[in-house]
């Protein structure tokens, strides 16, 4: 694997190996000495054309934990505002020695374009491109699920038979897309829930079940509910009447939470709109994986960086 652009097309064996490597990285994060020498002498450039807190910090922490040098580029305050293109920007970064480009971009397909362009030799890691994919988020979500559901016997396992509901703004969600592909490859049953206005139209071929209210989805009995953020920056149309109505039909409320099986996990990729898509008390409950997801994010990104490094052999 030279680049990490999408979870679509990753085979099951590769996915499981990435999860196992993530587990080993997570172990290292528990030790007194949290650093590995693996990427010594390599430079990871974080190139962020879009705002981000946890993804950028997480990639920085992952690169530093593997002893890489890190340079961070954000488009705000850069020459991008003077009209510099993506091509010129990344070529500049590579000239300064970047071996890995971690790209967050507002346009779907930006990371794939960069990987296929031939502009650079560096590895490209997609840290979120428009409404397309956010593959490292899916990896950390799958890892969080696997470790919470199977504990010490998680290693080497897939997610066969695990039932997961993803609820919210599927239309604009790169997290949902990346999760759909990865979770399906791992054998999980994925149900998508969204208002009709926030469900993509072309998803007949997706390996998922589709329902339109959360109650309908929860009736079936589920292992985990993944709530997505209502992205206020993308709510530029009348997708649903108002926030209260959204919460009533698609929010993870305490009433819904009390009605599901006691060990049902509740996930959220962050940042959360407490009280809108997820009740604050649920986000802070023992069933919530929100904090785990953040801490596993570093381990998952370490696993991806390490896995791509082996590609330099040829």
């Amino acid at each position, binding site marked *: 694997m030279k680049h990490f652009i999408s979870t679509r097309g990753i085979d099951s064996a590769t996915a499981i190996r990435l999860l196992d490597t993530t587990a*080993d990285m997570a172990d*290292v994060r528990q030790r*007194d000495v949290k650093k*590995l020498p693996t990427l010594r002498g390599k430079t990871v450039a974080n190139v962020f054309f879009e705002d981000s807190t946890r993804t950028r910090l997480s990639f920085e922490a992952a690169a530093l934990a593997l002893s890489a040098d890190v340079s961070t580029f954000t488009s705000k305050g850069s020459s991008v505002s003077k009209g510099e293109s993506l091509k010129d920007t990344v070529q500049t970064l590579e000239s300064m020695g970047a071996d890995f480009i971690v790209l967050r971009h507002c346009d779907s397909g930006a990371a794939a374009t960069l990987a296929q362009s031939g502009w650079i030799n560096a590895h490209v890691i997609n840290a979120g491109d428009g409404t397309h994919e956010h593959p490292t988020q899916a990896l950390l979500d799958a890892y969080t699920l696997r470790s919470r559901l199977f504990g010490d016997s998680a290693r080497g396992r897939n997610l066969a038979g695990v039932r997961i509901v993803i609820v919210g703004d599927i239309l604009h969600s790169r997290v949902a897309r990346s999760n759909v592909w990865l979770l399906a490859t791992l054998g999980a049953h994925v149900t998508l829930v969204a208002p009709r206005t926030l469900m993509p139209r072309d998803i007949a071929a997706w390996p998922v079940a589709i329902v339109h209210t959360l109650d309908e989805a929860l009736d079936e009995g589920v292992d985990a509910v993944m709530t997505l953020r209502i992205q206020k920056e993308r709510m530029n149309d009348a997708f649903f009447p108002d926030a209260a109505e959204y919460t009533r039909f698609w929010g993870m409320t305490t009433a819904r939470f009390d009605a599901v099986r006691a060990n049902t996990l509740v996930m959220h990729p962050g940042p959360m709109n407490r009280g809108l898509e997820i009740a604050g008390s649920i986000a802070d409950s023992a069933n919530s994986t929100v904090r785990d997801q953040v801490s596993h994010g570093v381990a998952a990104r370490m696993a991806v960086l390490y*896995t791509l490094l082996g*590609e*330099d052999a040829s």
Partner: protein
Amino acid sequence: MASKVVLSSPDIERALKRIAHEIIEAQRGRHDLVFLGIPTRGVVLSERLAQLVNDIEPQHIDCGVLDVTMYRDDLRTKSTRATTPTTIPASGIDGKTVVLVDDVLYSGRTIRAALDAVTALGRPAAVRLAVLVDRGHRELPIRADFVGKNLPSSVDERVYVQLAETDGDEMVGIR
């Protein structure tokens, strides 16, 4: 190329018993012993050695697994190797005698990586190295403290170790 058996199953057992005696002799009861096996076959050998030492002189011995993958110096020239979990005793390795156990000692680079991995885990009183086979061709100033069999070999030859737990069969061969 013709294949030749160098150690049979009873030979391996005898070699490990001798190593167990040598470990006890070198130890003279000074520190607690921790056996750290290097995957995959080093782990099997370390468990067997711990049992043998315990049979000769009953004592508490901790066993663990030391994955050295992330510390290797050839990661960027070889395709990605799968990592395995590292497990160390709950009481750690500080102040103890760590015995690293591997099946074959060759260039010494795995052991160099293992020494770095140990350093990241704690500060043992001493680190020793036990190997079933030493085939020579060292590329680093490293030697084993306990050797089952010195096996002069050519770099073109392949030394292979099979153990009942991992391979179903039990032998050391060269071809």
